[in-house]
């Protein structure tokens, strides 16, 4: 089944420290009946103080310190430098300065045995683990993470196995800040994946949803607008889907031609919330905000307004 949710504050810069993490936790927890195999979020619009934050999960077999040493060397070999490493069990949140090609950096980190990348972002990071939203928060404290927008997912596995690697959101290798959550099944993802692989893209999982992330990121990197990329995906992706994409500046949604998966939107002048079910949104919005239900073959996007830029003090 799976459930997806996203939230976006429209005047992002002036209200940078919105409790996006906390609100995603509440939304996802209220949809736990749609799946508790894993839960994950991407919280965007953060200020890291470094060029990138890389979210890495390390394999237990290899020994964490050994793997991290390998990552450190890999980054250093490309002229980058690691500024901080936060420790969350098997997960590491690595802040680093690096000015080169992101593809090279990702390949170099992935070449370290036992290291797997969950996300690389300039202003966003993916936090995902098995279990429900409160279990995720207990381990990763994401409810304290603020930002301008974010998305999340609760998973009932259908297309691939239940583990951390195959949980959502999926980051689009090797593009910073582009992530996807998806509810549904794609039937032509093998074909799309093969096409991308022939063009040199690298996939970390066997999951159908990862292909959507790369598909959208590839279009955006070729200067397509998010709305156009989503629109084109309606014909290129086959199967049932409703998915949400998060970029550094906004979110977008696309719904398949069968209208097979549920999706509702609640929107005010300041904030927009989207989710598989209204039950998630009523945790945040008062009763008088009118619900909108997108229909089949529909695409919508929302942007964080960057106009009222206010200097934010960093911790």
């Amino acid at each position, binding site marked *: 089944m799976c459930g997806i949710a996203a939230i976006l504050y429209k005047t992002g810069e002036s209200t940078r420290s919105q409790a996006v993490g906390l609100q995603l936790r509440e939304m996802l927890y209220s949809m736990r*009946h749609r799946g508790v195999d894993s839960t994950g979020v991407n919280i965007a619009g953060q200020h890291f103080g470094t060029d990138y934050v890389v979210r890495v999960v390390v394999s237990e077999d290899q020994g964490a310190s050994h793997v991290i040493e390998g990552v450190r060397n890999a980054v250093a070999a490309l002229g980058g430098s690691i500024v901080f490493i936060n420790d969350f069990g098997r997960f590491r949140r690595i802040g680093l300065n690096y000015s080169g090609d992101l593809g090279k950096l990702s390949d170099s980190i992935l070449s370290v045995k036992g290291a797997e990348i969950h996300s690389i972002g300039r202003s966003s990071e993916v936090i995902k683990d098995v279990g429900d939203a409160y279990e995720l928060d207990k381990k990763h404290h994401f409810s304290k993470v603020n930002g301008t927008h974010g998305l999340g997912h609760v998973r009932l596995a259908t297309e691939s196995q239940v583990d951390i690697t195959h949980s959502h959101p999926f980051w689009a290798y090797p593009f910073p800040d582009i992530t996807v959550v998806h509810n549904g099944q794609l039937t032509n993802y093998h074909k799309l994946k093969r096409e991308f692989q022939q063009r040199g893209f690298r996939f970390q999982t066997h999951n159908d949803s990862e292909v959507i992330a790369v598909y959208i990121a590839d279009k955006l990197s070729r200067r397509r607008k998010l709305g156009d990329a989503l629109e084109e995906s309606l014909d290129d992706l086959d199967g049932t889907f409703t998915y949400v994409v998060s970029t550094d500046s906004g979110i977008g949604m696309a719904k398949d031609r*069968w*209208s097979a998966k*549920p999706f*509702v939107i609640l929107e005010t002048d300041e904030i927009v919330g989207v989710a598989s*079910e*209204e*039950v998630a*949104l*009523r*945790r945040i919005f008062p*009763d008088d905000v*009118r*619900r909108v*239900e997108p*229909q*089949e073959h529909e695409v919508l996007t929302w942007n964080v307004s960057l106009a009222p830029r206010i200097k934010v003090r960093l911790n």
Partner: protein
Amino acid sequence: MTKRLAGNVPKALSAPVSQGYSIDARKLTTRLLNASIKSGVSKGRHITILNPDARHNLAVGIVKRCSLSFAGSVGYYCCAFCDGISATIEGNSGWGLGDNLMSGSIVIREDAGASVGASMRGGQILVWGNAGARAGISMKGGTLVIAGNSGFLTGFMMQRGRIIVMGGVGDAAGDSMYEGIVYVGGEIGSLGVDAKTESATRSEEVELRAFLKALKFRDDILPRRFRKIVSAKRLYQYDSLEPLERERLVI
């Protein structure tokens, strides 16, 4: 998880209000809430459910004549498998509102999600807002009235009964329907497989208008005329025999 409920249910009910009971849904699990509704129903009083918070499976399986109202939005399968219920929902609903309704009436003040009135066999559902995709899917009787627009695949695989849409319908309207009628006041996006349109006869128009007036629709908001979507019966393969029974019949 939840223990089977026996005698302690009425305690979950709040203080009686003038027209009947009110129940605060936030204080109860869904199972306890449904048990409380049933318990109140058997006392024959009106029940108001406060703070339904778009939760799922509320007021399911009630087979008594009763009167309910929900002071907010409800989730999936609200009032499913009910017989004789009279319910009002002040907000929106999720998927499958009034699934398999046998008799009674459900009124929803705002929008209904997908599959409203799925497999309903009797009674009446009135949606004051819009309906999502597949409204009246597999309907087997009764009347579904939608005051706004209805989405994709309206009346999908409908077998009996009628759907009255005052606004327009989306694409693939009446797809694979067997029997029954979809009346449409507005635009038809496109017709589904083996569906055709006819204009409503004069006596049908008169009957429809009288029916809608009885539901308190003002004359001036009624559509000027209705078109109806019915099965073209080119692909009609419909009988009530099970495959095994049919085999025996041939032998």
